[in-house]
């Protein structure tokens, strides 16, 4: 049995000291409540819409403030997220697994959304590593940050690398208010679909912790959840309310589910690698694409459709090629 504490907090934007203090309080509260794992949201130490504040609140991994926070994790595991400054002065959105007084692992957000209302790539560098790590909980833990979960490979790789608990720490802005879906918020509906699907396909626990509160225009919706390895929600936190939610899970559920449904056992990694290698070479124009449309440019699978007005204008039937094909 593991008690997980979901710290659905409302970080204060740019107020590192305040947020550190709040993390320490909640860590104590979680420990007093019997939790073995406490999960804080993405950029819980700094707030999300940092823009140029990012460099001002960035922490090196040896920063005494971070080291002191890690020191407070004796007898407990914690996922804590902040802006990390690397030795070469790149800024990452990072989440650390802290256990027994030290930083065990740091995940640097791999997928930085830079579209719609997001502008992360302007301010941050993207991480290059996805690893599941062993933990004092007795199972492997895989950490992902928000957008990382909007790419199939993230939960898959983490599960294949040994994770039985997938943590997703988020600052997901709520948007697309709608009465037509069951939770009234388009963003939440999408997330819930993803988490249930990933939990089922990876036969792992998915722990989602999303912040609440407001930065500038956006309101973060909370709705943190724990999903069991069969894809069923074990707990769903309320939307928009700050709180520390304690959830009990039975880690034995992973074994039961994986015996019943041996999806991970049956994954075909060598096939995946082989096909990915082929697609990469074809996209680079280095190999003939056997599955491409006739007339497609090197590196592209699809040829442009003939223009609807081509006949009327007396244009040639063949799409115009930008350059000759190298074959």
């Amino acid at each position, binding site marked *: 049995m593991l008690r997980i504490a979901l710290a659905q907090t409302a970080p204060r934007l740019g107020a590192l000291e305040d947020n550190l203090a709040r993390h320490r309080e909640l860590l104590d509260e979680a420990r007093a409540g019997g939790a073995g794992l406490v999960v804080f949201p993405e950029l819980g130490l700094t707030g999300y819409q940092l823009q140029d504040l990012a460099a001002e609140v960035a922490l090196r991994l040896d920063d005494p403030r971070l080291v002191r926070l890690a020191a407070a994790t004796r007898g407990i595991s914690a996922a804590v997220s902040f802006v990390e400054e690397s030795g070469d002065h790149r800024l990452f959105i990072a989440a650390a697994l802290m256990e027994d007084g030290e930083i065990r692992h740091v995940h640097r957000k791999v997928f930085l959304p830079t579209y719609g*209302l997001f502008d992360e790539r302007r301010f941050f560098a993207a991480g290059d590593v996805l690893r599941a790590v062993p933990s004092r909980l007795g199972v492997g833990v895989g950490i992902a940050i928000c957008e990382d979960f909007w790419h199939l490979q993230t939960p898959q790789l983490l599960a294949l690398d040994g994770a039985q608990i997938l943590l997703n720490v988020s600052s997901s802005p709520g*948007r*697309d208010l709608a009465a037509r879906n069951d939770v009234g918020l*388009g963003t939440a509906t999408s997330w819930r679909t993803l988490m249930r699907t990933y939990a089922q396909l990876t036969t792992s626990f998915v722990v989602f912790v999303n912040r609440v509160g407001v930065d*500038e*225009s956006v*309101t973060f919706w909370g709705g943190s959840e724990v999903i069991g390895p069969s894809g069923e929600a074990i707990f769903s936190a309320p939307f928009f309310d700050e709180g520390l939610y304690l959830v009990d899970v039975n880690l034995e559920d992973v074994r039961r589910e994986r015996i019943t449904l041996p999806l991970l056992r049956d994954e075909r990694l060598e096939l995946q690698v082989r096909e990915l290698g082929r697609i990469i070479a074809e996209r680079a124009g280095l190999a003939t694409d056997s599955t491409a449309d006739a007339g497609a440019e090197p590196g592209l699978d699809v040829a442009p459709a003939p223009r609807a007005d081509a006949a009327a204008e007396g244009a040639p039937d063949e799409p115009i090629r930008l350059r000759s094909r190298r074959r």
Partner: protein
Amino acid sequence: MTAARPLPVDAAGRPLFELPDELAIDTDVARRVIAGFIRGQLRQAGFERCVLALSGGIDSGLVAYLVAEAIGADKLLCVLMPYRASSPASRADAEAIVTDLGCHSELVEITAMVDGYLGRDGEPGAGGEAVLDASPVRRGNFMARARMAVIYDRSVTFGGLVVGTSNKTESLIGYTTLFGDNACAFNPIGDLYKSQVRQMAAAMGVPTQVIAKAPSADLWPDQTDEDEGAFSYPLLDRILYWRIDRRRSIDELVEMGFDRELVERVERLVATSEFKRQVPPVAKLGPRTAGVDYLYPRRRPGSARS
């Protein structure tokens, strides 16, 4: 780069103002960029004329010269909007600028509008009894917004865009009135520090007395910005330049010889006035929200007045 010109001097041969080395700009290049900017803004908006609030101070004075250089004085309307307590010298300086440029001008006294709300001589106005005791800052803000209402009204009758006249220094420290003197269609000098405004004004032939006098919001007799804020513009400009443009830390500024207390005070002014420099946030609710994920240039095909 053109060689730095010597600073203009007064009758006794003293420089009219102090220009810190690091703030000196190539005024020829700046004039060219700003003239193109003004013409571009007007073209994209479908306008040919400009209006501006001319106080007789150096900021609005410089903008008048810049606009006249960019589009011709015949396409510029300067509106003089004194209050009864405004300094007569300011009005004389504004008139001197209008005469020198040969632009259009109008005089709109705001006294009746302002007193109509704030009251006068113990007689309450529309704002009621309590407004009679309004602080000078509150009164000043109201006057700035009264001028804004007038200049936007005159922009319609003259058919011109309202040109902003706030400089970078006052914008950064928040020494502006939100939706008052900082309201405009575009601002050609918002990225020039006060010291650079003086350098530009000297290069463009703004009257010497306008350049040399102590900057003032002219809210009460003998008020000056530097007395009110207890700073000097060249020093303030240098702090802002090193801190913001050159990204130096507070500690680094102290090492450079700046007074820590002053640097920290400036830091607070900048941080507390961030809201004055930005469009107010809209609560994000729908799939696309103006300013958040509905992002178009202010001026795009189809946006010009036809």
